[in-house]
């Protein structure tokens, strides 16, 4: 407890916990509802009043302790029928793989390209450096929608429509990572790099053997944000991926919704499949999310 800050007293703290807990429950309810609806037995999805605990969970102990394994197995099969249908009746798996492939490729591509550029901007001297950096960074202020139409024309001219590159290449071109990593690399002292250069190490060796290992926390942060942005991006893939076999997960979900407008059990199963990977990544790498936000955000 920090006594000098507001809400120092014991009653104040109780009050705080009560409000925060209630608020957190409200905030997490939609995500909870995704998973609950996804696991609900199909005939109970639209139950009135709604069932807040799906039958698989609420009936597991009574049925199993009564020895009715057969009945329980039936409930399990029923409850996961939406998921099974996603697997057998839609292209969900394909969309998942598309998103995963593009996300991983974007992440590693960005890490390589941006760390190289950032290394040069942070540690090297060359004529026009400031100007080049300024040109790249100033485009960060321009909303992506401005580029939508011309980018579509370029992708179409290059014959990349319905090709993973149509999504991947524009993601690799974003400059946020250059900015983030340059900020990070500027804080790394140059002594070791100087020493290596005197020992005759090449520019590439200095970058690869010294800079990259030192920049690991920055790289982890950028990697996570890149993967999240790629995994969740919607508008651009919706425009350039028009064949079902090339949909990314969010685009696939939209199509799924268009075709099953009121089958909420099925829709929520799909949403759950899309949400789980990001939730896992977040829970595993929480500190990098926070570091990334504070690093890329406000200065002073």
């Amino acid at each position, binding site marked *: 407890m*920090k006594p*000098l800050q*507001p809400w120092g007293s014991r009653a*104040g703290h109780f009050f*705080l916990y009560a*409000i*925060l807990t209630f608020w957190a429950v409200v*905030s*997490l*309810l*939609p995500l909870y*509802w995704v998973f609950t*609806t996804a696991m609900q037995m199909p005939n109970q999805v639209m139950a009135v009043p*709604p069932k807040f605990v799906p039958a698989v969970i609420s009936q597991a102990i009574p049925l199993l302790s009564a020895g009715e394994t057969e009945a329980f197995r039936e409930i399990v099969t029923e409850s996961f029928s939406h998921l099974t249908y996603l697997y057998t009746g839609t292209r969900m798996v394909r969309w998942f793989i598309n998103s995963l492939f593009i996300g991983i490729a974007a992440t590693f591509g960005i890490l390589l390209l*941006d760390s*190289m*550029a950032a*290394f*040069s901007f942070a540690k*090297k*001297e*060359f*004529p026009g450096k400031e100007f*080049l950096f300024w*040109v790249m960074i100033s*485009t960060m*202020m321009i*909303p992506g*929608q401005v*580029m*939508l139409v*011309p*980018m*579509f*024309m*370029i992708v179409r001219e290059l014959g990349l429509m319905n090709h993973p590159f149509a999504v991947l*290449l*524009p993601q690799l071109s*974003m400059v946020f990572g250059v900015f983030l990593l340059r900020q990070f690399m500027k804080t790394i002292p140059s002594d070791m790099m100087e020493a290596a250069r005197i020992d005759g190490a090449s520019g590439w060796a200095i*970058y690869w053997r010294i800079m990259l290992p030192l920049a690991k926390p920055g790289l982890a942060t950028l990697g996570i944000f890149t993967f999240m942005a790629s*995994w*969740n991006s*919607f*508008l651009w893939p919706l*425009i350039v991926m028009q064949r079902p076999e090339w949909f990314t997960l*969010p685009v696939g*979900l939209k199509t799924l*919704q268009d075709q099953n407008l009121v089958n909420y059990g099925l829709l*929520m199963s799909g*949403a759950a499949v*899309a*949400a789980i990977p990001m*939730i896992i990544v*977040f*829970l595993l790498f929480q500190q990098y*999310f926070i570091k990334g936000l*504070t690093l890329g*955000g*406000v200065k*002073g």
Partner: protein
Amino acid sequence: MNKPKKSLGQRMWESRSGYLFILPKFILFSIFVAVPIVWSFAVSFQEYRIFDTLWVGFDNFQEAFQDPVFWRSLRNTGHYAIFVMPANVMIALVLASFINPLRKRPQIFFRAAFYLPTVASTVVLAMVWRWIFQTRYGLFNYFLSLVGIDPVNWLHSSATAMWSVILMAILTPPGVGLILYLAAMASIPETLYEAAVIDGANAFTRWWRITLPLLKPTTLYLMIVSTIGSFQVFDQVMLMTQGGPGYATTTIVHRIYTAAFRDFRFGYAGAMALVLFAIIISLALVQYKLVSSDVEYKG
């Protein structure tokens, strides 16, 4: 000191590795960022037809400002932004002020709980909110029925559709803002609060006079970022209402999207995108002027 001065070309050649490290990124940047930005201005003054392209001057802009749907989309987006931006910033500030005094473990727990919805994509959230707003079986009307309110046709009535989209944005906690505020609060030196206590300032006064003013840069940043984000709202609308009913939830980006990729009117879409850009830049500048001059005034 009296080394002969090298020519620019010489200096560039000697620092060639600096360029080489940037080159791959720069090529991609040029093709997919720089060229589209420059081209976006040209596009807005053109009319694309099947076999040829015409220069049409300001026709696209003129059409936009005479198009009632575009005006509607401006109004809808403004309506969304004017509620969502202040709500997001204020909720982030309140939550951070509540979480900051806690011990380390509960602090980490609540921070994670409030940030979690942010990592799920807007598409996922919009899909579940569409289900929550469902008239007959939706969770929202169920909760309302508990307090005796009749079911509302949230997404299918033009009176409430935009409000539903706004409600979703407000009830999704502003994870980024929360984390930035918490980081800024952690960097305020404890001695300031100690001095205030000696002067007899109570908890609220300390928050109002010390915490709040020192958070001003964060507040300004969040206001600008949140305004920009609000004016780009698209995913929710696309998934929840498709811009309808009628044009009740058509936002600027949704209008741009339909103009370009449903009607294939690229020039017209490009012109509207530039108008959006102009709006965003001017709002950011106005906010910057307002809040930063306020800082100086008090200084």
